[in-house]
């Protein structure tokens, strides 16, 4: 195995995290017209971490490749990744189709093979489907080690990777040699804003468009959307004026 690290960072274009999505009229998806889209926040953290690893471990990172699977507009999120410090990128253009995490991981496996990546850093979940599966599925397909919900990543001298992970009730530290997949927790780092000059420069960096049919993967969905609905709204509550009123109201509701 080469002693160089080739990082792959998958990024997803999602409805901006600050927006409340609206369900469409046919109840099978959300409104996308005129809605602001951004890079999935966890993926932004993943790109930031890849760049940080290169900065803090002089000479060990050979390349950082960003990949997105989505509509042609997902080029935007790749430009963000390039502006943040990725060297090259590719877009698997699937149009408006939405894929299961299983299909996504199969595509990512192909990209990994093509890039010869030995470290994959990706978000722990996309904030649209909230599945939280792709990293683990890709690790399963590749037979690699996996470290999910990373809150700290350290590359050791011997090229093993130590990862601090957020788990229920605390943290856990694991160590694994490359190749490895890491998924990011929100506390891993604080992504920097992308400056305009960097964004301009990113336009000159490579962005290859790949057609999914060239990859020879069956992208058929295993899941069928029966319906997508708004959650049942809570009944409007009341406001009280004093602590005494608050306590009596809580008693009335049998909360205490």
């Amino acid at each position, binding site marked *: 195995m080469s002693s160089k690290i080739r990082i792959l960072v998958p990024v997803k274009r999602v409805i901006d995290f600050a927006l409340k999505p609206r369900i469409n009229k046919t109840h099978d998806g959300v409104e996308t017209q005129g809605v602001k889209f951004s890079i999935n926040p966890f993926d932004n953290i993943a790109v930031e971490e890849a760049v940080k690893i290169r900065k803090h471990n002089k000479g060990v990172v050979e390349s950082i490749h960003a990949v997105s699977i989505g509509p042609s507009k997902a080029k935007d999120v790749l430009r963000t990744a390039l502006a943040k410090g990725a060297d090259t990128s590719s877009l698997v253009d699937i149009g408006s189709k939405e894929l299961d995490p299983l299909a996504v991981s199969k595509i990512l496996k192909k990209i990994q093979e093509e890039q010869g990546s030995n470290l994959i850093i990706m978000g722990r979940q996309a904030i649209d489907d*909230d599945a939280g599966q792709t990293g683990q599925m890709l690790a399963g397909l590749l037979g690699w080690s996996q470290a999910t919900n990373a809150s700290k990543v350290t590359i050791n001298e011997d090229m093993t990777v130590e990862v601090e992970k957020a788990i229920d009730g605390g943290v856990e530290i694991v160590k694994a040699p490359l190749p490895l997949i890491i998924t990011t927790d929100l506390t891993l780092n604080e992504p920097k804003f992308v400056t305009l000059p960097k964004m301009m420069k990113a336009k000159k960096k490579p962005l290859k468009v790949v057609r999914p049919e060239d990859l020879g993967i069956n992208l058929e969905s295993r899941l*069928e959307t029966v319906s997508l609905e708004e959650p049942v709204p809570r009944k409007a*509550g009341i406001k009280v004026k004093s602590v005494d009123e608050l306590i009596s109201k809580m008693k009335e509701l049998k909360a205490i």
Partner: protein
Amino acid sequence: MFSTRLLFRTIRPVSVRLGSTLAFLETAGGQITPASLSTVTAATQIGDPITVLLVGAGSMEAAKQAYKLPSVQKIIVSESEKYNHYLPEEVSPLVVKLLKENSGFKHFLVPASTAGKNFLPRVGAVLDLQPLSEIIKVVSADTFVRPTYAGNAVLTVKSKDDVILASVRPSAFEPAAEESTATSASVEEVDYVKSGNKTEFISEKLITSERPDLSSAKVVVSGGRGLKSKEEFDQLLYPLADKLNASVGASRAAVDAGFCDNSLQVGQTGKVIAPNLYIAVGISGAIQHLAGMKDSKVIVAINKDEEAPIFNVSDVGLVGDLLDIIPELTKKL
């Protein structure tokens, strides 16, 4: 209950009774975790007999508890220390083997805990199956409900897979209660399945607390950015939590500001809880946070900003200064 089930088994024609559900149960100190007991409830709603899987230290001890759970027909145990920390690279090969060798399993459920969510997709990829994350309702054997978009949309989804893999959101199902009579479940010990794993467990730091566990607490007192500092967070929230025998939670803003540990975070990216009483102190109510608590039975909000979105979901709201209100509330309870 025991006799009812016996009757149920005898009258049901064997030909349609081929399916069964495998449920992975987590243990802590030889006890089945509350999240896992909720997983058993979800499994009973599918309707097939249940086989439970217990692995790692203390699983034989936990098996005694599993005997008393409803619909449990079989208990599979491996006490191999390789499974102690539920490393996905170790647990997955065992689950894959069980699902491959027993074609009777039509469902495999895990609690949507960090451990469950860590290995379930890995199993799915190896078996070429697409798991469902965090189901909150069983509609039928192949159709389930799960939240998406930080709980802003509720998705009803039908799986076409032969074996349906799903993680179960604990707050959406009551923990299964132990029955007074043990079932006639059989216990089978299985060996460690070779994995080729290269990941090494180094250590863990768990936040030890006398308080009830956040995920299963009946009352949660949660703090946000409105608390200004770690000192304020500690001094205001903990005495109130003590009074109510409550667990303490936090918004992401409070975690980011360093007021408390990451593991206390309630929200889309933290814990999803549904206690009887949730008291939000100095929390504005961003959608990320609401995703983690809006199914609580009673929500109380205390905030100085009367326009804060948290008041849209709270049953009782009080506008005012936390520094005055919280000590007064603590004193008067």
